[in-house]
């Protein structure tokens, strides 16, 4: 949801004269929405701005985003950061992987999700 939110915000700013660049990890969501400029890091969600405790990675990630901000030739410019999360890409198979869930676990996840929705709704209504 975060990636969709910033994509919609970037579009709105851009349509009103403010140039934007998104730094993100969910390529499909951002490109499906359609945004002006996007630096894609192929990292686990939560690391849009670089690797943890790695200033060089963070500085390089920002620098690539700034370069796109400055020089993208037109809308839907995506650049993929050359940085790798790890040599082994098997981490990409794990996110919301249903194959590892038993029917009992799925029922448990549904119950948890219903509870979370209830909390979020209450929070939203009091905001």
């Amino acid at each position, binding site marked *: 949801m975060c990636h969709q939110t910033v994509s919609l915000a970037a579009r709105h700013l851009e349509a009103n004269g403010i*140039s934007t660049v998104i730094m993100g990890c969910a390529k499909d969501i951002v490109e499906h929405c359609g945004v002006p400029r996007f630096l894609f890091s192929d990292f686990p969600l939560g690391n849009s701005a670089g690797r943890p405790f790695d200033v060089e990675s963070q500085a390089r990630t920002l620098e690539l985003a700034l370069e796109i901000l400055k020089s993208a030739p037109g809308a839907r410019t995506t650049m993929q950061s050359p940085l790798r999360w790890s040599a082994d890409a098997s981490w990409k198979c794990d996110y919301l992987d249903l194959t590892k869930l038993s029917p009992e676990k799925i029922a448990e*996840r549904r119950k948890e999700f219903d509870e979370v929705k209830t909390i979020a709704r209450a929070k939203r209504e009091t905001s």
Partner: protein
Amino acid sequence: MTTSAPESKTVFAAEHDVPIPYMQRTRDYYLTLGYSPYRWAHFVEVPFTPLGTPLSRARVALITTAAPFQPKVGDQGPGAAYNAAAKFYQVYSVSTESVPDLRISHVGYDRLHTSAADINTYLPLARMKDAVAAGRIGALGPRLHGAPTNRSHRVTTETDCPEILRRCREDGVDAAVLVPS
């Protein structure tokens, strides 16, 4: 004696070594849990505004989906379970003078492979300050702005986006860096 050129061997990357198809994974996951599919925002036309000021003179905003730490709503620390009580539903702004205490326990980051222990992985404020000090960016906006992660496109588009624009204009920024958590 005959010689032959050494064979070059092309090695492809693993089939799964591609950007994660989050929309498909999410759709499959929630269908299995018994929910109807979510309709993701999708447009054909995309606006584009060339940067009208050299970056070294531009004032740049930072926009985040991270949430201000709220001491009374439970664990929001590194690796905390998804915490819906830590969500926020209105645009907020905080000074960029120092790095604020913003967390991401309210969103679905990859808790298996990362832990949100370093704020600089989702909030590049310190690195942006470095870029200003190096003369790469002219200045930062005086405030960074927080965008609520609402499932409702309508609320995001009709309420939150205009509010973010209003605040960016107040701050007189030329450009914005947007960073999802």
